């Protein structure tokens, strides 16, 4: 375990025995962590291992139930982010803590101390953004900015406070590989200035490349500490998960290239629906039986809008824009599209794919009341409870959904188990077309592997599967071809044999001919 923690001198931060309880859950259980001056220290762990909880306690957004934090050798109580900032701790959040209706400068002002006049902040921010190569217009409204630009605001906001320790929570999960490379340059530079960086990630390759030391968390406990540069991706994964991760088995796709597509999009357009939403422009795609098509892209480039358009939650201006099993479905609602043979799994589990305060059996009715009307709904619209409960049980068994009660409310399940239920609910129908947005976002490795395998198996049994994901590793693992979504347009699918991270990454950044790169737009 971490033997060196308390003894080594010259530590910037030493946390010992940190414990945080959420009800019965021990999110952090006696965690020790020490960070040296001028190092990039990685905090590794699966989703739900307790990484975010731990850093929120260091940053003062959460209060630990037990444990001690020493800063530059002195014991401190970080009871609020304000105190953390005064000490010299800055943080870049995973889910940005930005205000969409305010400008970049106003956002920055909010985290600075009260003496700095608003007018001075914009100038300072501009200077810093030039110095570190993070282009930014302080007067632009955050709601209009891309995810990458928003992250720059977070970073500049953090740097303006001259922190000794910078915490970054999954910073590359929203970046293209090329944008991530630029970020690493900035981080190396900060390290060169003698600052320390606590880098949270579950991406092993970048941790190996960037970090000096790593602390590994599993189920809220420190399970290992190591020098990631001397480990392999496999050995790091083993530390994180605690067991060998089974690779997904992908038999060669047996589909005939000339088979009629089960799902087709023809020049799909969609006007923006809200002040900050992305319009879809001429999206075309065909998914044939037996294949998995992946759609890659940085968050906020129209993936959510595309999903709603395919699912029928948003209708199209013309019926021919979407066809399902040859039927023109553009003017059909989601129920009619389901009846035509399609199944959908949205990105948001709680509140979209499932109603949080409703039981799993009720959430089964949610998406199946029409397609399985005869089995689940009796005369006069009375719900057949027995049949619904039996089907729920069947799905839970098939997907190995782990739960604390016989029929718990959806919000009581962990993210991974709820996602297994939601995917299982659709697979149980053996749909001809399956459209999934972010199948394994925030899901632990075991559940993620099971979900990916089930999607591949569905395709190999003759269905068409469309997977929208921001996780490139996932797409390379399961897709037969990958298309890229950027600024509301979709590239041609690239067969997996030709696709590389670099090629896909360039497309994600908008490098396809005819597109304006993001950075150029941000600076104009």
């Amino acid at each position, binding site marked *: 375990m971490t033997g060196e923690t308390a003894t080594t001198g010259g530590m910037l931060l030493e946390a010992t025995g940190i414990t945080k309880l959420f*009800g*019965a859950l021990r999110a952090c259980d006696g965690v020790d962590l020490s960070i040296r001056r001028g190092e990039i220290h990685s905090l590794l762990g699966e989703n739900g291992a307790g990484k975010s909880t731990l850093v929120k306690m260091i940053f003062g957004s959460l209060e630990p139930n037990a444990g001690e934090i020493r800063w530059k050798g002195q014991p401190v109580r970080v009871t609020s982010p304000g105190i953390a900032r005064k000490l010299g701790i800055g943080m870049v959040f995973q889910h940005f803590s930005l205000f969409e209706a305010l400008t970049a400068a106003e956002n920055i002002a909010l985290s600075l101390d009260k003496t700095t006049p608003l007018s001075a902040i914009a100038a300072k921010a501009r200077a810093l953004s030039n110095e570190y190569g993070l282009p930014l217009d302080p007067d632009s409204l955050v709601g209009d900015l891309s995810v990458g630009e928003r992250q720059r605001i977070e970073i500049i906001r953090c740097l303006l406070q001259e922190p000794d320790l910078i915490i970054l929570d999954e910073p590359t999960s929203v970046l293209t590989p090329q944008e991530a490379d630029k970020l690493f340059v900035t981080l190396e530079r900060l390290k060169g200035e003698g600052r320390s960086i606590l880098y949270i990630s579950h991406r092993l390759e970048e941790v190996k490349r960037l970090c000096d030391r790593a602390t590994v968390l599993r189920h809220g406990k420190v399970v290992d500490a190591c020098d990631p540069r001397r480990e392999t991706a496999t050995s790091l994964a083993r530390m994180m998960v605690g067991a060998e991760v089974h690779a997904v088995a992908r038999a060669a796709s047996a589909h005939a290239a000339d088979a009629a597509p089960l799902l087709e999009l023809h020049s799909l357009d969609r006007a923006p629906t809200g002040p900050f939403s992305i319009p879809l422009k001429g999206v075309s795609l065909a998914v044939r039986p037996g294949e998995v098509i992946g759609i890659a892209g940085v968050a906020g480039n129209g993936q959510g809008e595309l999903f709603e358009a395919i*699912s029928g*939650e948003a209708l199209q201006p013309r019926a021919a824009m979407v066809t399902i099993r040859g039927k023109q479905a553009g003017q059909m*609602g*989601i*129920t009619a599209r*389901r009846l035509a043979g399609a199944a*959908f799994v*949205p990105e*948001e589990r709680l*509140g*979209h*794919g*499932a*109603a*949080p*305060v*409703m039981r799993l059996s*009720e959430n089964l*009715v*949610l*998406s199946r*009341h*029409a397609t399985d009307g005869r089995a689940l*709904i009796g005369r*006069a*619209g*009375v*719900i057949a409870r027995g049949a619904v409960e039996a089907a729920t049980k069947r799905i839970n068994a098939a997907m190995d959904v782990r739960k*604390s*009660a016989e029929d*718990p*409310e959806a*919000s*009581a399940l962990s993210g991974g188990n709820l996602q297994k239920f939601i995917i299982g609910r659709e697979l149980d129908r053996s749909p001809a077309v399956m459209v999934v947005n972010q199948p394994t976002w925030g899901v632990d490795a075991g559940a993620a592997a099971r979900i990916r395998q089930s999607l591949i198996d569905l395709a190999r049994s003759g269905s068409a599967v469309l997977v929208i994901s921001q996780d490139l590793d996932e797409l390379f693992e399961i897709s037969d071809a990958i298309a890229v979504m950027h600024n509301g347009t979709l590239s041609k699918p690239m067969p997996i044999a030709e696709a590389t991270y670099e090629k896909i990454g360039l497309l994600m950044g908008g490098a396809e001919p005819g597109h304006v790169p993001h950075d150029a737009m941000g600076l104009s």
Partner: protein
Amino acid sequence: MRLQLVRRPQHSSLMAAVSPLIAFALTLIIGAIIFIAIGKPPGAALYAYFVAPLTEMWSLHELAIKASPLIIIAVGLSVAYLSNNWNIGAEGQFIMGGIFGSLIPIVFPGFQNVLTLPLMILFGILGGMAWGAIPAFLKTRFNTNEILTSLMLVYVAQLFLDWLARGWLRDPQGYAFPGSIRFPPAATLPEIAPSQGGAHYGLVFALFVAVALWFVMTRTLKGFEVRVMGASPRAGRFAGFSSKRMTYFAFLLSGGLAGLAGISEVSGAIGQLRETISPGYGFTAIIVAFLGRLNPLGAVVAGFVLALTYLGGEAAQISLGISDKLARVFQGLLLFLVLACDTLIYYRVRFSAGRKAGEAA
């Protein structure tokens, strides 16, 4: 001292059942304190409010007369609120129900047969629905906030009734007093047990409506649709339900029921159309709906409790000289405390000492 909410992993069924009781008990305690403060004996006052009306047959009938409209309206409002459609204009829909239903005996005084009452009731329901359809139309078509529009229409309905009762529908033989002709027996909702007291068939409507909607809400796909659309509208749309249709459903149902209550009140309890026909039933029913935990059967119990405060207020004024205005305070207080106690269903409340008291006053 600092108050902190900790979300429960699952909502507490125990608390869901107990919270209205806690709220009622707290109301009694605060009531007792108010009585002591104004120098009245708390025991006797609470007795006059909450027990005395239950001891005599005639006052039980009075209780039923007051509870019926509250229950009928509240059942509809429960469904509307569960679906996240905030109809707070039931008072106006009640009035329009009363007006529409009354048209038959007033405009066609000669039409007196077995069809008179059913037609009046049908017209009453349609009147309430029509008035409720306006905010629904404005919400679905123009995205207009239904809280404000439904409330504004209450004032319009009140003024409309005032105009009718003093003008077009006034009894020509009424010596210039506002109010229509008195309804003939064929247009009067009969009493259930005339030998014992005045409770009319409105009570039967109330119980029937409550049981029917309880069944719909707990057992059928429609009830499921209402609950999903209210709890997670996005999940509801994912299920293929239409939020616009749900808005219409909620407003037509709650408006129609308020209209039913309105014509029942005019035909059963008042016997003519007057310039005012409601002591604020449409607003008190909001309290009934919440006190009944937005459950149609709960609304029955809550309807009787609130009716008791009306009767008790009158009784306490006569026996102890306490202002009957206090009844309205009790009603408001009760709703406040019910809402506060409902927090316990989803959260555990923890008090932690040692932090600045600024946050929890």
